[in-house]
């Protein structure tokens, strides 16, 4: 049964492995080059917060962006591909070609066929996702020494920790269930792409509620000091203590800004601060990284289990 699984799915397994290997080589090369560059060009005390480190930081930023743009699409596209090429054909192709009537009339019972395929391929998908996460997590600090930056950017967040594994597994389960439902590969692939996109958008919206947002009151500025935080909402606190979305009757004139300029808004804000207003920011601090990682992974794992259960139930109920 293991041989059968390997023989039927080796194309997907090999292509995915080759892709990860290629990405690994690219990241390794980029990291080694950056390390050499730092060793040669960095002034003493850099990289770090020292004043003279600006040039080095910019040079590293350029290198980072050049490579990141090569695989920055992965958080969305990789799960969609996994679902379309690992999940959708698993049952869809068997039904489409009629080979399910060959596979499921041998001595190996249908439930065992399903169990082996789902666990072997699901395991491989999880391993692939973890490998991607490991490579990205080793690569990024080379460019961002000492700076927390994996929480605020949802794209990066979805490529580190346990997220890639959870997303890949979810997409695989979604594809398998869609294949069992449609009994065709192509519609199942389409559903996976749509499903992964919708799920990602939904969870992004939902992630504000994974934890009660932290609240902080600012005076004199409207910019939160923590650049890696996720902003949930903002408001003003009136001198009387009431919280409002937009101050009215404050006595501060607000003129419209033209073009790129922020000047009039800044004048207005300064006026408000002068009259005792304070600016409130609701946000998720980066210290909640793992809490968010596990919450999202938990949701996706539960959804994967439900979809896998649906596919198994559907298949066992009417195998022919």
């Amino acid at each position, binding site marked *: 049964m293991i041989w059968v699984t390997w023989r039927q799915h080796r194309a997907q397994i090999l292509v995915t492995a080759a892709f990860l290997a290629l990405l690994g080589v690219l990241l390794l090369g980029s990291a080694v080059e950056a390390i050499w560059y730092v060793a040669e060009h960095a002034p003493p005390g850099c990289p770090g917060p020292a004043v003279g480190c600006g040039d080095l930081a910019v040079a590293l930023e350029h290198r980072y962006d050049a490579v990141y743009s090569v695989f920055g699409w992965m958080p969305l596209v990789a799960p969609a591909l996994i679902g379309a090429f690992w999940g959708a054909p698993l049952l869809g192709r068997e039904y489409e070609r009629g080979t399910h*009537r060959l596979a499921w009339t041998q001595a190996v019972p249908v439930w065992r066929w399903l169990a082996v395929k789902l666990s072997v391929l699901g395991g491989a998908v999880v391993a692939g996702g973890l490998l991607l996460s490991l490579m990205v997590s080793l690569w990024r600090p080379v460019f961002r020494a000492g700076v927390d930056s994996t929480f605020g950017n949802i794209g990066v967040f979805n490529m580190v920790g346990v997220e890639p594994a959870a997303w890949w597994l979810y997409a695989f389960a979604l594809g398998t269930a869609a294949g069992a439902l449609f009994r065709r590969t192509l519609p199942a692939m389409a559903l996976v792409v749509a499903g992964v996109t919708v799920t990602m958008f939904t969870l992004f919206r939902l992630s504000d509620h994974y934890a009660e947002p932290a609240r902080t009151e600012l005076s004199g500025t409207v910019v939160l000091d923590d650049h890696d935080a996720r902003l949930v909402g903002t408001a003003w606190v009136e001198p009387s203590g009431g919280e409002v979305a937009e101050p009215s009757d404050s006595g501060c004139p607000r003129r419209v800004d033209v073009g790129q300029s922020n000047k009039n808004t800044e004048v207005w804000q300064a006026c408000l601060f002068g009259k005792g207003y304070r600016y409130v920011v609701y946000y998720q601090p980066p210290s909640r990284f793992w809490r968010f990682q596990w919450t999202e992974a938990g949701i996706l794992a539960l959804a994967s289990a439900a979809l896998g259960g649906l596919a198994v139930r559907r298949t066992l*109920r009417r*195998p022919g």
Partner: protein
Amino acid sequence: MRPAMEATGLGVRYRRTWVLRDCSLSVPAGRVAALVGPNGAGKTTLMHAAVGLLRPALGRIRVAGEAAFVAQDKPLYDNFTVAEMLIFGRRMNTHWDDDAAVSRLAGLGIPLERKVRGLSGGQQAQVAVTLALASRPDLLVLDEPLANLDPLARHDVMRSIMAEVAGRELTVLMSSHVVSDLEETCDWLVVLNGGRLQVSGDTEELLDGHLVLTGPDDASTAGTQVVSASRTGRQVSMLVRGAPPLDPRWQARRPGLEELVMGYLRSPESAVLPHLAGMSA
């Protein structure tokens, strides 16, 4: 005799439609049974129920020992080589006779290193049948094994199946909507029509027990049991069961298998079903 396959009160439903109703039959071990009936009669459904591809809504169907199945379109994995299909069979089965499979394919001139999609339709059918036989089944179920094959390939496939039957204790259940395909090979007949069982029995006994009568249309049918009749002008042709009628104007002869089957299919309300051994409760 011990039945190789036995169905009791079998009923299968797709959504609201019953595709198989109240089906009770048994096929004795060692027989080559023909399952015939028009398209949509429920032949494939009965076979799928026998090999566990669907669960009946009512009744049950039981196979003594292991069953092997070759589905209608003889599914194989297109991108496997023939040798890989054999590995597939070995990995998926508890009993596997690799030597027999290899020598059988060699005898048929089918190269092991060839991809399945590179084989002709007849060769693919032979590979599918070889896989089924190599798992050493007690019952071989073949759904329209000869459909889409040219006359030569039909003959070859049929002959090679019969060679296996002769070699060991193997029961075969094969379906066809072309009766003449099965005439020379089958010794048990099952006729399905519109989801109901019409005929189940030993072919020779059935043929001996029926007569084809031709005579004028005013001739009396007293003393015989008419299965179905067809008129052409003033001439009547009938399939009857049991003793010939008393009216001497009838000309009687033994029916061919096709005539017998057609006679029953023409009148769905007629049936000839034996008392099933071991089924009286």
